[in-house]
């Protein structure tokens, strides 16, 4: 019996493992190796150049711009998305009168918030490109319509505003998903806890701070990991929407874009692989740190 079981398990696992090794692990491993070569991407030959590609990263001012911008996105996008997502989710559940129900029409809000999730990121970027158009865009149009024409800007072409404009699109496109995620998590909290808090005289903020937040902590943590990875990427939005792309003058350059340009436009696959490996370790470090930081003092609703 035991033998048959092993055979069955192996039969079920091996094909999947082989596929995983072939199409997931092997490309990773190849990228590690290629990052140590001068591979051009158009010929079978590549020469080993050791750590040369990594040494160049430090002197590549556009890459350093990209690292800085990704760091800014990493600091802003997850925090803003989680903050807005938590706010909207808790309002939908507890924002109503008496703090026991959601505000009126919360079901409809939930569906509307989810809409951006249905669009591909490229479509989102194209649409927001139109919104940000300085002459005919919705944003400046709205500002002028309400008499705030003085605030109208050339959003994507101003070095000081372009990255913020990109970050806003990233937040807008992902917040709906996290509203739904946090809603599900809040749904999982027993009602009695909120009622007990109410009876103890806790207000809305205290309930959120002392009951909701600790009990949805796991979801928030996962959200930070996913959003962190998205903030370290941001390639699609930047490539489609920004001036240059990546501009003006590197103001919205991200690592993914530098990597893409070096690989597919400059024929420097080796150097681009080095960027990819650097990004891989940054992402991995982030994921491990985010998941570790939340492991202590886990609260069980018991």
């Amino acid at each position, binding site marked *: 019996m035991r033998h048959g079981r092993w055979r069955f398990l192996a039969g079920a696992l091996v094909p999947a493992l082989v596929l995983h090794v072939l199409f997931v692990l092997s490309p990773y491993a190849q990228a590690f190796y290629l990052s140590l070569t001068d591979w051009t991407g158009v010929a079978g030959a*590549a020469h080993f150049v050791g750590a040369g590609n990594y040494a160049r990263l430090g002197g590549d001012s556009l890459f350093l711009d990209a690292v800085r911008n990704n760091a800014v996105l990493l600091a802003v996008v997850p925090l803003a998305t989680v903050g807005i997502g938590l706010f909207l989710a808790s309002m939908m559940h507890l924002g109503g009168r008496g703090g026991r129900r959601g505000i009126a029409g919360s079901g409809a809000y939930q569906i509307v918030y989810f809409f951006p999730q249905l669009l591909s990121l490229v479509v989102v970027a194209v649409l927001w490109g139109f919104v940000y158009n300085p002459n005919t865009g919705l944003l400046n149009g709205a500002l002028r319509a309400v008499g705030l024409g003085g605030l109208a800007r050339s959003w994507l*072409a101003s070095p000081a505003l372009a990255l913020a404009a990109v970050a806003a699109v990233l937040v807008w496109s992902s917040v709906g998903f996290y509203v739904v995620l946090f809603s599900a998590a809040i749904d999982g909290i027993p009602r009695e806890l909120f009622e007990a808090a109410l009876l103890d005289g806790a207000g809305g903020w205290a309930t959120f701070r002392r009951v909701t937040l600790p009990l949805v902590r796991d979801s928030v943590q996962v959200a930070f990991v996913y959003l962190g990875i998205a903030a370290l990427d941001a390639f699609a939005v930047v490539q489609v929407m920004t001036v240059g792309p990546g501009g*003006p*003058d590197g103001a919205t350059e991200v690592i993914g874009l530098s990597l893409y*340009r070096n690989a597919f436009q400059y024929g420097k696959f080796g150097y681009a692989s080095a960027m990819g490996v650097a990004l891989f370790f940054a992402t991995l470090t982030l994921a491990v740190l985010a998941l570790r930081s939340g492991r202590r003092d886990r609260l069980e609703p018991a």
Partner: protein
Amino acid sequence: MNRSTLAEPYPTRRTLLRTALTAGVAAPLLAGCVTGGGGDADPAAGNTGARTADNPLGVKAETPLEVVIFKGGYGDEYAKNAETLYTRKHPGAKIDHQGVQKIGEALQPRFVANTPPDVVDNTGASRLDIATLVAARQVADLGALLDAPSFDDPAVKLRDTLLSGVVDDGTFAGVPQTLNFTYTVWGLWYSRSLFAAKGWSYPKTWDDMLALCATIKAAGIAPWTYQGKYPEYINDPLLSMAAKTGGLTLVKAVDNLEPHAWKAPGLIAAAEAFAELAGKGYLMAGSEALSHTEAQAAWSKGKAAFIPCGSWLESEQKGVTPPAFDMVMGPVPARTAGDQLKPTAVQAASSESFLVPAKAKNPAGGMEYLRILFSQQSAKAFAQSAGTLPAVAGATDGLTLSSGLGSVRDAVAAAGPETFTYRFRTWYAPLAKALDDATGELVNKRLTAAGWAQRVQKAADAVARDSTVQKYTR
């Protein structure tokens, strides 16, 4: 709580390190996957026939031919027409035609595996970087093709049927590697009907341009707009102006990455001219954030008088341009009275790069295909269907042309031998990127002309110092 009793749902430092180490060890073993192309055996062995007067490239009858064409704005009918002519001449040959949009994605793995097609139209946004292909020795020497008799007249070599500069455009380190099929001219576009209605005339000098801009602005129209999302569009008139002032010496110094080339008086003066254009508010507000479609649409609607662009503009604006708009292209005005080149000189370069891969199975057939494609019959058909000048001289003779294409043909005729083009954009793509960024800053008043020259010179010096970049000279 005892931590060791907890399940470990996350990777620990140790498992991580172990995985990373395994990956590091396994990498060189697996690397054969992408970089282990075939051997050096000649894939074309036995596929070449005898060279005769009627078959100057030695095409072996019945050897199949694989043609990969970029199917973009011009479609691929013109390429199929040439294939029909090919099979008429070599009846036994089977032609495998592929019209694709993503040339790079389709062909990169085939170059790496040493099984490329026989002739490639390496064009479009995802084309393979030609300098990289050449440096990797993946492209055949087209010298035999250029010296072969042309398809129409055996007494004339193919190279002598081409427009000025076409052979040079495809030459790398003295070796002709690509042959470009279309001829693009860059200049400033305006609506002839609008100018006639307002009584404006196209300026010959930059001082006239500034005076006209003041008049246009007073009339409530923005004098200029540009495709701000892609600053290379406004680079073209800037670099044209500099080339006219400094002549081919300046152009070659720039392309050859000479020290201080970007600080030449001609380049500084041109940069100052565009800084002044921006400073005086002659660029349409918001242009800096507009894509090429948005800026060109604004221009077609008459919101701006001038727009810099290449000769593809007319076909790109089909369907957007109002009737009787009569778009025409003029040469970039002269900056100084002592310019080295005449005011009629234009920046012109061929594009739509055809190449024969070095590892093609039927290189003779690939070159024969190009000989046929560059024939009068094929080029005339292309000019008519695509609305673009082919690189073949005289291909538009006797054709009735639209206003835009007609003005482009006239500009080429007026320029005569005084056409020029910069090669650094194809040779050193990272330098082009640095220049685009700097020019974007210049025309948005965040960088002075001197600062612009300094920045671009620094980027050029960095390329010159970089031993990993293959250098070219002209």
